[in-house]
């Protein structure tokens, strides 16, 4: 058992709550080692809502194999478990894939035609991580921000680190949980808490802007799935994520 303490950087927070992707990144980092430097598959179940301050991260190495190191990571505050995370780590390749289904990267207008998503949203809520993650949404999928949801359950845009640095696999973990919820385009403006998030990081991202699309398949009984796909500037799929999250219908 190893681990450490994470002092939660409030500049990432959303509406006064720590950002899930930021916490996930801080925890997963502690499960990596020299021979297994990259997260390959990360599964997080969010157990209770974290507060600001300090979180304890406990890492249990389950097995260290040649290709894969498996760990269980717990993010806790006091006696409460905030998130439980499983990490399979290894070494990612920057080579061309052996085979792909031919699924093309999501089509987007030129980045200069996509305005940057501000860290203060249309409802006045502060979404601090947009000071760290530079998101340029396709205006056609961001009409909800000006009161015109399109009912498409899809949001897409360009993403990179706000400091201009190239995205590491840990940054990609954050990006996989950084798009606004697709429910906004359905006119549901409430909070969409993630219950479960799995990210498969598939390759090292080439330098430059990443293309990100997030969509839902089914909204039913208060739960929706959101799939997030991320391609790099070379057109390679670098991450696939899916989450189960909660939504609420407005009171009738």
């Amino acid at each position, binding site marked *: 058992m190893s681990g450490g303490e994470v002092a939660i950087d409030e500049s990432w927070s959303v509406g006064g709550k720590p950002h899930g992707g930021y916490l996930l990144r801080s925890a997963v980092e502690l499960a990596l080692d020299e021979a297994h430097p990259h997260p*390959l*598959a990360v*599964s997080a*179940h969010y*157990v*209770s809502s974290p507060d600001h301050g300090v979180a304890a991260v406990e890492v249990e190495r*389950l*097995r260290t*194999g040649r*290709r*894969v190191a*498996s760990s*269980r990571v717990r993010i806790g505050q006091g006696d*409460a*478990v905030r998130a*439980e995370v*499983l*990490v*399979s780590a290894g070494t*990612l*390749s920057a*080579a061309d*894939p*052996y*085979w*792909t*289904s031919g*699924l093309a990267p999501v089509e987007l207008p030129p980045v200069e035609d996509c305005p940057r998503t501000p860290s203060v949203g249309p409802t006045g809520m502060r979404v601090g991580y947009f000071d760290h993650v530079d998101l340029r949404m396709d205006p056609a999928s961001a009409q909800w921000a000006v009161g015109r949801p399109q009912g498409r*359950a899809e949001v897409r845009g360009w993403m990179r680190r706000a400091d201009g640095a190239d995205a590491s696999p840990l940054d990609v973990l954050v990006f996989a949980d950084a798009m606004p919820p697709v429910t906004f385009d*359905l006119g549901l403006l409430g909070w969409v808490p993630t*219950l*479960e998030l*799995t990210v*498969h990081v*598939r*390759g090292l991202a080439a330098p430059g802007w990443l293309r990100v699309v997030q*969509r*839902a*398949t*089914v*909204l*039913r*009984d*208060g*739960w929706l*799935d959101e799939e997030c796909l991320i391609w790099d500037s070379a057109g390679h*799929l670098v991450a*696939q994520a*899916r989450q*189960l999250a909660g939504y609420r*219908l407005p009171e009738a």
Partner: protein
Amino acid sequence: MTAAAPMQPAVRQLELDDAWAYGAGVLHGGWLLETVTSIALESTGHPHPLAVSAHFVAAPGLGPAVVEVEPLREGRTVGSLRARLAQDGRPKVEVLVSAGTLPPAGSAPFLVDAAPPSLPAPEACLRHEMPADLPRNGILEHLEIRLDPATAGWTAGAFGGSAEVAGWIRPTDGRPLDPLLLLTVSDALPPVTFDLGIAGWVPTIELTVLLRCVPVDGWLRVVQRARSVHGGWLDEECEVWDSAGQLVAQARQLAGYKQP
């Protein structure tokens, strides 16, 4: 639920037998996930798995095993648990379960942006059987799998190169469909790598299944596809639709392969 459940870890001894195994004791990932999850659910007041994630740490063998369950939180709508299947003190499968109550069959979704795969009738599909020169596959003794001939050319040596396998699945042992069985079904089709001409074992390292509603009995339509085969790893995404046309499970796994 009015009182908090006691947060006591539970320990269960069990014997892993070869009823659902392939060959001399290769245990099926989906079946292991169902086995561990069914034990984990005994430690919560919530009846159904909503989201289940497994990391396969090492391949378990036939014989005695221990499942330890640790409840993490018992909430009003969700119970969170972690569970571990271990043998000889070594973790083999580590599982996280978020449990709750699934909507009943027939309740109306708010939005569905997908359609079940279109398949020829079950009787026009190819019954999936092991070739005589390969070992038995226990899963085929419990599930009837009928493959869409359009995605099963590889069974006759003609590779489609589309990395998609689709077909019908139903239990043959008289067991009614339930959310737990969907965990096994989500990993029951032959690996899509066969369609790419990549032979050999495709060990799962991670498998997550989202359950979306209680299934109705009858044939399930199941489709599995890959998007990228890269650097020794591939994704396999699986959708399960029931006979009432409801999306009942969504799964994705990361698995290894050996490049030919």
